[in-house]
């Protein structure tokens, strides 16, 4: 039966009866709400809420009854509820004993004002500075631990170091190799396309050699490793933090920096240069094959031209950056891992943050190296 609420005449003149009927359920609540709001509520009268014709009732219906009751009472009516069936009483009790107040508004996110916007910029800046300071402090801690380990080399955990080198180095070879090879192919193709217009196709090799050896090989490797291993460091250490494993290490008298961070930093610092050499090789291989395929430059010609294009320093300028990038990636990765609060969602958030931060710092550092090298005229 469709729900309704109507005023009907009462026996006693001056008194009013609000007769409610039908299913007062969640499903009919929207319809009921509309009708109840449309009701012309009296004031200062004797009103009886007659529930005799209610068929089914749930909490939403009970709430609407209570709201109506409160609205009538607020207008100075004397309200009585009549004909409550025994089966409905417990539910009415349950809902009516709680407050009838209007719901509190949903919180509105701040920063919608100009002042809020400026305040937010300030907050973010301060947080950034604090963070940079904190990462620097963490780096110092690792250096101190490392120096300590140099004095007692037996405490260096070789199995952990080797395991890290395998995970970050050997296991990364397929993806680093493939991507470098493809970048070499793309670079050779684009370079050849442009240089052909001047009849200078052969300089594609110079372009390729300089770009890959100086910049692309190492930068690409660093970015891949930041996404692959930097995030893994944060996730691994963060999960240990959530499980209280880090605290367990401390109570067992082990230094988490020594056990967890040093093998990762050292492992990456040793393997990233090797990976960069491998990436250089794969990039040049891709470029070489592409030059041969699209320009017809034979491999001996390619190598000859490469030798004349590439100076003594070109290769080393690229490789020398790798250990620095490695330290940045592993420090940021481990640092963010230790920052994880004891909740699962902070692992995800900080893992993302660690990747973004380490890629950012790697590229900034690369730019700084470029400036340095140009000042040194290398």
């Amino acid at each position, binding site marked *: 039966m469709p729900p309704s609420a109507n005023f009907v005449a009462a026996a006693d003149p001056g008194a009013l009866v609000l007769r409610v009927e039908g299913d007062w359920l*969640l499903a009919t*609540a929207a319809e009921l709400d509309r009708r109840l709001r449309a009701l012309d509520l009296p004031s200062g009268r004797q009103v009886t809420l007659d529930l005799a014709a209610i068929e089914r009732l749930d909490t939403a219906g009970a709430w609407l009854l209570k709201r109506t009751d409160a609205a009538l009472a607020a207008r100075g009516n004397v309200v*009585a509820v009549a004909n409550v069936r025994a089966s409905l009483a417990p539910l009415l009790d349950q809902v009516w004993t709680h407050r009838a107040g209007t719901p509190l508004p949903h919180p509105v996110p701040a920063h919608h004002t100009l002042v809020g916007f400026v305040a937010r910029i300030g907050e973010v800046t301060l947080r950034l500075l604090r963070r940079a300071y904190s990462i620097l402090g963490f780096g110092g801690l690792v250096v101190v631990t490392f120096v300590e380990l140099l004095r007692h080399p037996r405490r260096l955990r070789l199995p952990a170091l080797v395991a890290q080198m395998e995970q970050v180095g050997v296991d990364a070879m397929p993806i680093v190799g493939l991507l470098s090879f493809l970048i070499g192919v793309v670079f050779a193709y684009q370079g050849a396309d442009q240089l052909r217009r001047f009849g200078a196709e052969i300089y594609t090799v110079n372009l390729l050699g300089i770009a890959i050896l100086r910049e692309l090989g190492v930068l690409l490797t660093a970015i891949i490793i930041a996404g692959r291993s930097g995030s893994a460091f944060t996730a691994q250490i963060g999960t240990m933090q959530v499980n209280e494993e880090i605290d367990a290490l401390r109570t067992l008298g082990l230094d988490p920096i020594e056990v967890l961070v040093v093998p990762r930093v050292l492992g990456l610092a040793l393997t990233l240069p090797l990976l960069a050499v491998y990436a250089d090789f794969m990039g040049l291989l891709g470029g070489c094959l592409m030059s041969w395929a699209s320009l017809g430059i034979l491999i001996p010609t390619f190598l000859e031209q490469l030798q004349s294009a590439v100076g003594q320093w070109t290769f080393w300028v690229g490789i020398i950056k790798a250990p620095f990038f490695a330290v940045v990636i592993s420090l940021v990765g481990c640092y963010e891992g230790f920052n994880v609060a004891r909740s699962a969602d902070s692992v995800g958030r900080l893992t993302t943050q660690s990747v973004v931060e380490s890629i950012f710092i790697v590229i900034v550092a690369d730019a700084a190296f470029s400036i340095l090298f140009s000042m040194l005229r290398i």
Partner: protein
Amino acid sequence: MPSDQDDIVIRVLGVVTRFGTQTVHDGIDLAVRRGEVLGIVGGSGTGKSVLLRTIIGLQRPAAGSVEVLGHDVLRSNDAERRELDQHFGVLFQDGALFSSLTVAQNIEVPLREHCPMPEPLMDEIAATKVGLVGLPDDAGQKFPAQLSGGMRKRAGLARALALDPEILFLDEPTAGLDPIGAADFDKLIGDLKAGLGLTVVMATHDLDSLFAICDRVAVLVDKKIRVGTLAEHLRDPHPWIHAYFHGPRGRAAQASEQLPPPADPAPVAHVGHSVSS
């Protein structure tokens, strides 16, 4: 207690659950009657939560059938499933509240999905549920991270009750609560069951809950299930069941239930001025 066959709301027949080669359930039969509170107990790893998830339809058993309110859970299509979802509420272990939404918005998620209604009414209904589970008014505005564990459970319960379900599933409702909070929560479940006419199925480890509010108890043991009243389980000679109910904790829980209840400090204020029959 009603025991007629018609009033069975959940019927589980011959359910077999396997994870890889490991069999967790080997032919489980269970019938839940309307209006009762059924506790599911068992040692760690006996698949209490798994059984609960199977009934809800989150886990497919290797064999057997599950019927909830006359619908076959395992063979229902999407539309039937959606319809059925509105008739039961689930409280997950830590509330499983959506962390990016406030408590009130969490409660409004199922309302928004299933019952289109004006925004102010929805807010009112959400506020009613917040009050119903015994949370303070301002809890509706808070985010789950700002609540204590006990409050999160209550908020999760409010969301489970959003659509006025007939059946309520609780997974370890009192785990992680302090004894006072746990006792309060038991009382809340009992009150809501009486007021809203709920059928409650709960997986639990808490012997106090079992003695306080459960009408019947299903014990998962040897990959099978044994269902009965507490009195029946107390007489059961099975070694695990005996150890469970007659161990030191079991005895303590029994003893506390048999003590005369302390004198009521003050009669709870009744509905107020206007409800009279």
